[in-house]
């Protein structure tokens, strides 16, 4: 084990990336959950958290404050970070104040540096006992893309963005790479705990907390488990004051319990709509040109090219490789559902996806809905001739593009024409 870890460090050192603060990034995550849900999972895994309960009405928040004690913290439950600075966390002195603070948050939209100007809706607040904090620390686990191992990161500098810490005081971040064959070991916990300037009984306590966090990370297929801050209270106890858990989308099939935690209100409505229609790789962008592409790299490149030609894509949409017409029809339903759509570009380079199936889907879409915008179609690859024949025979009206660049240029022109 030690030898293995050593080689990892040497290899990273050679590549010069060990010191690269931005190398340590979450891998494969997308599904987020709320703080109160993450804390419930923490409690299940023996990670100490402050006493708290979630409320969805101001009166409910007041009742919880009565139960927990006079001084409590009211925390808006949203997926976005940066709540504190945005006014989403309020410290109050009595149940009446708790009720008032909750009434200001519940039903409002919170705008943080991570949300757009429209913010995210707050429908729940966490009412939590106020902790007497002596020290704020940092602890997280994610999978490191270069060593291919889970890495636990700890720092005595907590409560701020870890990327800032990595840039200003990289020597204050300690890391332990975890061998999946034997799991997190006590010596690794001690190394990190001493790095965080713990001593005495806290070393054992911190090591247990880390061991439990790793167990949770693995059991639930997390992509990120972060406690920022992890605090030491005035009476010397360790507490996870905040809790952030993100999950690996690819592993959700084996975690029905986690899937159920997802709060659709926190997400972009068009993206939720796309998912409901079986289009998993859809991201809303800020333009007016609808795009349907097969393959993620090509879809990104198409959006780049549209911008190069003077337009803006309304979305990223990779239809993937499932060979059925339904997903093509549903992509068109997305374009119709999006009021910003001025023109649409279909760019397909068939490989695993077959061009004839795509063409049949486009014809079906035209039959099922009034397409009120110009559609530019560029097809290439597997079963191209058959695809072209289907489009030609159908008599539908569309703008044919000869290649990738031609498609981008024509759709930008079409969108500009449609705006006049």
């Amino acid at each position, binding site marked *: 084990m030690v030898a293995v870890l050593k080689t990892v460090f040497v290899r990273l050192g050679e590549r010069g990336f060990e010191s690269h603060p931005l190398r340590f990034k979450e891998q494969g995550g997308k599904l987020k959950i709320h703080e109160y849900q993450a804390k419930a999972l923490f409690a299940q895994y023996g990670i100490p958290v402050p006493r708290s309960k979630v409320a969805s009405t101001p009166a409910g928040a007041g009742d919880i404050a009565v139960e927990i004690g006079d001084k409590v913290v009211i925390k808006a439950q949203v997926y976005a970070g940066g709540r504190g600075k945005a006014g989403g966390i309020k410290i109050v002195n009595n149940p009446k104040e708790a009720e008032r603070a909750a009434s200001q948050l519940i039903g409002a939209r919170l705008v943080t540096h991570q949300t757009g100007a429209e913010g995210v809706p707050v429908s729940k607040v966490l009412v939590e006992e106020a902790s007497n904090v002596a020290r704020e620390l940092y602890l997280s686990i994610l999978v490191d893309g270069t060593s291919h191992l889970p890495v636990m990161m700890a720092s005595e500098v907590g409560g701020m963005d870890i990327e800032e810490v990595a840039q200003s005081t990289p020597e204050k971040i300690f890391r332990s790479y975890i061998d*999946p064959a034997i799991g997190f070991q006590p010596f690794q916990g001690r190394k990190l705990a001493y790095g965080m300037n713990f001593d005495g009984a806290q070393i054992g306590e911190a090591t247990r907390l880390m061991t439990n966090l790793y167990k949770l990370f693995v059991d639930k297929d997390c*992509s990120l488990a972060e406690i920022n801050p992890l605090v030491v209270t005035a009476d010397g106890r360790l507490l996870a004051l905040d809790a952030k858990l993100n999950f690996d*989308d*690819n592993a959700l*099939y084996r975690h029905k319990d986690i899937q159920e935690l997802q709060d659709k209100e926190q997400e972009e409505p068009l993206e939720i709509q796309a998912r409901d229609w079986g289009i998993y790789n859809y991201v809303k962008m800020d333009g007016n040109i609808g795009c349907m592409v097969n393959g*993620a790299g*090509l879809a990104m490149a198409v959006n780049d090219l549209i*911008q190069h030609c003077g337009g803006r894509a309304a979305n990223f949409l990779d239809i993937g490789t499932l060979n059925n017409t339904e997903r093509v029809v549903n992509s068109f339903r997305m374009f119709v559902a999006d009021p910003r759509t001025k023109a649409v570009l279909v760019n397909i380079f068939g*490989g*695993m996806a077959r061009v004839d199936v795509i063409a049949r889907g486009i014809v079906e879409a035209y039959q099922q809905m009034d397409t009120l915008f110009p559609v530019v179609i560029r097809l290439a690859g597997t079963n191209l001739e058959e695809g072209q024949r289907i489009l030609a025979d159908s008599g539908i009206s569309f703008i044919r593009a000869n290649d990738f660049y031609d498609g981008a240029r024509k759709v930008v022109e079409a969108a500009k024409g449609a705006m006049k």
Partner: protein
Amino acid sequence: MSILVDDSTRLLVQGITGSEGSFHTQRCIEYGTKVVAGVTPGKGGSKHLGVPVFNTIEKAMAETGANASLMFVPPAFAADGILEAIDAGMPLIVCITEGIPVLDMVKVHRYLKGKSTRLIGPNCPGVMSPGKCKAGIMVGEIHVPGNVGVVSRSGTLTYEVVSQLTSLGIGQSTCVGIGGDALPGSTFVDILKLFQADEDTKAVVLIGEIGGTMEQEAAEFISHNMTKPVVAFVAGSTAPPGKRMGHAGAIITGSAGKASEKIKALSRAGVAIAPTPAEIGFTTNKVLERV
């Protein structure tokens, strides 16, 4: 010459009897690839597409001399399939499967340590040495033999690039899709090393995208170790931060993940950057004229 696969490749297909496995195995055979075995547990002893099917990789390798595996196993079982192939001593595994859990791949990488197996993918289009061997799902007809190596994190964008190259009369030595996952079996650096050592490769086209730091690592390798010219394009200049753009690995979670940072690192290493994805072939042509 070429890298990874050529006319001595004897291909085994894991998941040969599934629908995707069948469709693409047929295409590989039509291209001229020597498909010598298939593996589907429970279907050993039968034949599929004229290829003998085995229950285990160990037996298939012993009886057919297979030296490369192409995988179409569904994501929930894919890591197990890769582990079986590593255990059997398979020299090359090309995994097409998309959607394998990250922690499954952590185990795979741990098991790969100290073994001689090379893994390409997962979530990739495969490997193609034009005129010699197609071990993947790429469109065969758009490739022609030649001297430019292609390595890419994308599938269909690679087809786009290859068709641009071919239409300009630029053939390819080998095209390698390393895949869009966060923990690929082989990285840009791994493949660049092979292209640098391959005498038939005169230049390399590298197709990167947002997320991770693989392009920066490639830039570092290129500036210190490569004598052959490299052309690059990085997809996702317009991608918003924090959003996963289809590929599991394509998410900007810090400044290093941005396309602009990657392009900066690559140009500093002397790489010729294609200004748009439509000009990758054109940029390569200009670089080749200088060689």
